[in-house]
């Protein structure tokens, strides 16, 4: 499992894996074997490199649901930081890009499978109307029309497996009726 750590102005790419009872944390590429056990509710005992430190973990609410806020307390004080799923970070960035581009071509932002096609060629759609559902990374992602449009071309069919950036639907922006 990967996470991006943000503390103060520092960002660290993290990964934690658990295989055959061994837990390893990867900290910006460097591996740290962890002996970690939950000792009480929200409290962990960690032995890392021979050092034993007890850590109490509080989850703190963050305005952005994708940013998981934490306050971890050790004997030397409290550390406040956020952990974020880097996939969601990519998604958020891609989402921002697609919004900016205003393009008429709807592309897959992640590799995935077309779970459901909700429109057909020639149909007119309203702004925000769902076009298709792409299942990617165990999440169902709904793609919607950025503006009121006519569906000019559907490039995919239900059940298709798509690469990232694959063309899915071409839209024609409808002129304002005014």
């Amino acid at each position: 499992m990967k996470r991006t750590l943000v503390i103060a102005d520092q960002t660290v790419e993290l990964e934690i894996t658990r295989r055959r009872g061994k837990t390893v944390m990867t900290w910006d590429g460097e591996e740290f074997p962890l002996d970690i056990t939950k000792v009480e509710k929200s409290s962990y005992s960690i032995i890392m490199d021979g050092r034993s430190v007890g850590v109490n973990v509080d989850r703190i609410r963050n305005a952005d649901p994708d940013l998981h806020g934490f306050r971890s307390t050790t004997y030397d004080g409290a550390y406040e930081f956020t952990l974020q799923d880097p996939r969601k970070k990519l998604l958020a960035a891609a989402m921002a890009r697609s919004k900016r581009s205003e393009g008429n071509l709807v592309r897959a932002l992640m590799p995935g499978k077309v779970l459901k096609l909700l429109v057909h060629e020639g149909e007119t759609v309203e702004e925000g109307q769902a076009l298709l559902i792409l299942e990617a990374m165990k999440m169902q992602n709904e793609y919607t029309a950025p503006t009121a449009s006519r569906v000019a071309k559907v490039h995919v069919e239900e059940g298709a497996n798509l690469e990232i950036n694959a063309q899915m639907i071409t839209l024609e922006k409808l002129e304002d009726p005014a």
Partner: protein
Amino acid sequence: MPVTKLLIANRGEIACRIMRTCRELEIPTVAVYSDSDRAAMHVRLAILSYPVGPTPARESYMRVDKIIEACRKTGADAVHPGYGFLAEDPDAARQIIEAGLTWVGPAPEVLERMNNKITAREVAASVGCPVLPGIQEILDDEALLDEARKVGYPLMVKPVLGRDGKGMRLVKTAGDLRRALPRVKGDAIFSFWDERVYLEKALIHPRHIEVQVAADQHGNCIHLWEREGSVQRRFQQLCEEAPSPAVSPELRARLGDLAVRIAKAAGFVGVGTVEFLLDQDGNPWFLEMTCRIQGGHAVTEWITGQDLVKWQLDIAQGRELPLRQDQVPLWGHAIQCRINAEDPDREFAPSSGRIQYLRSPQGHNLRNDSGVYFGWDLSPFYAPLVAKISTWGQTRQEALARMHSALMEMRLGGVRNNIAFFRQLLEHKQFISGDLHTGILDHAWWKQKAVGPNLKFAVAAALFDELEMEERRAQQPTPRSDCATSPAAWKSHSKFNRF
């Protein structure tokens, strides 16, 4: 009059503290509680409990009629006010005495005399205690500004009926004073229903030294040495120790003598504290007298081996003091830290919320006075005090080292708190050397929240917590089959992203 059942008109750690002594003395206790305190620790420790109203203290703990009603209903024949709330309220004391109950505290006239800072200053001056120059007359703002120029800045502006540091402001210039006056008056009306203020010359970097006194109904009055409470924020003590590293045996004798004379002149009976400021030349100046048990009393109990709540109950029942002045011991050194749910990095702003984790320190010569437990919700309506940790040592150095160790062990989760701050205080050179003054926390010299040496451990635990959560989530059945047939079903699904 004997006390056969004691009602404690308070909550939190002080209510629990009083109940512990009552258990030893086999005096049944009555807890009173507000709506949000039904499950509070003091209710759980008491023999009997009685509800006194809504959460705001003024509508419950400070309602004397409710307290008297609780006594009637539960058969309590005495009231211990603890500190805060009704503790120094002469009207409350009077009503409780008039209801035929025993008031564990000084007489209402004494409370009136010493609550009023102007008459208290007069009492102190009458026995030859140095009193800081000040302006006690009630003047309009312009006249006050004129007088202030004569006394000279800096000055403290204080409510006449003030206590617990509420409303006090330090002013350095006439402009400061002009701005401060309406605010101090506003605070004074809000807290004490009285807008009178007075001015007192402010000392530069004074030390706060308070002498514990006790007086019985038979005219005996002694002192139990001093405490130093210079580590303050918002004029409220965070940490106290006894004896004070600044007090020589000669000064100790002088302070004790002054305190006893002031208590006697005030007609004081009970357990209280005469407070002084020590200027930079080590001269004491009268500050005020608090006529109640104090939050810092544990350090005095450590160095004298006495139980001051037992003393209060003995005095209230007309017994003589258990010790003469020459029998009061002074053993070693004690220090106490008040663990508050507050954020030292944000000007000690209070934090409220549920205690998600609590590990209290343990060990030799360590005491924990707490009124909370794991899972308890700290209400923003009350003081954010979680626990008072105190330690004793043969020497100051030993007491401090023990406290430092205790703070390393203590863990509090769910609320921001000052445990790490205290640890740094105990590592602070100025504090270690005993060179204290009341402005020691004016500038944040302690390390703010930052990246410390245990970051990897702190993060590893959070990362592991995330992993376990993700694994738990993966084990839950996914509603995929529904998705294919019914878009509406997975529209409401939480793992749903919209583009």
